[in-house]
């Protein structure tokens, strides 16, 4: 299945891109996706950062199962206002 990924803020800078598409096998989770992305973009692993995870604009856990066409975002700590 094909998963769309968007990068923001420090992760966008670290990945060197704002968007990516990842091919994953059926049953893969958000955690599996993150693991796979680290190989393509080794700088994504920011020491000490605490990420949150969103699938299709909803906050989820790392063990959330993905589906074809899902939009996944790894969110650095927010700092709006």
């Amino acid at each position: 299945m094909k998963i769309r990924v968007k990068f923001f803020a420090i992760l966008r800078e670290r990945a060197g891109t704002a968007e990516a598409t990842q091919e994953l096998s059926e049953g893969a989770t958000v955690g599996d996706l993150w693991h796979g992305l680290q190989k393509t973009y080794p700088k994504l692993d920011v020491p000490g950062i605490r990420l949150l995870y969103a699938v299709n604009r909803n906050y989820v856990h790392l063990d959330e199962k993905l589906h074809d066409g899902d939009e996944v975002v790894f969110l650095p700590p927010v700092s709006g206002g």
Partner: protein
Amino acid sequence: MFRVQNFSIDLNELVGYVTDAEAGAIATFIGTTRNNNEGRNVIALDYEAYPEMAEKELARIGAEAAEKWQIRRMAIVHRLGPVQIGEASVIIAVSSAHREAAFAASRFAIEEIKKTVPIWKKEVFEGGEVWIGTQTGQPLPQRQRIETETENRDRDLRRRVRTRSAA
């Protein structure tokens, strides 16, 4: 009106939007770029968002405020891109029949924005730049307090995710 935008925010637009014949009170909150932070001389703040989810979260804040207090209308607009010293990065406006609700809802909204809305602020200061709230591993002048705030923010947010999953 729950929106992110790349241009300056018009306070009058928001206040006009929440003005209501049944309202006796309008409270507004304007977040502005301060020329200093944690001992650094700030040049500007540069905001980035996950726009679709940010607007969804802003609307969620408005809906929660309407459940908690008797408010009439609410508007939140957050600016993206560079915001110069003294300019507004976010404006909240809320109207209510009686003033208590407007005060409480505007306070609630800014606290929630800082905790849960996917917007990120890069501080451009004299001598460098930093994503606020992101531990980069590079020591910064007087960053101790920022890191503690980040941890609190993060814990609150994780708690909310858990609650949602349980529901």
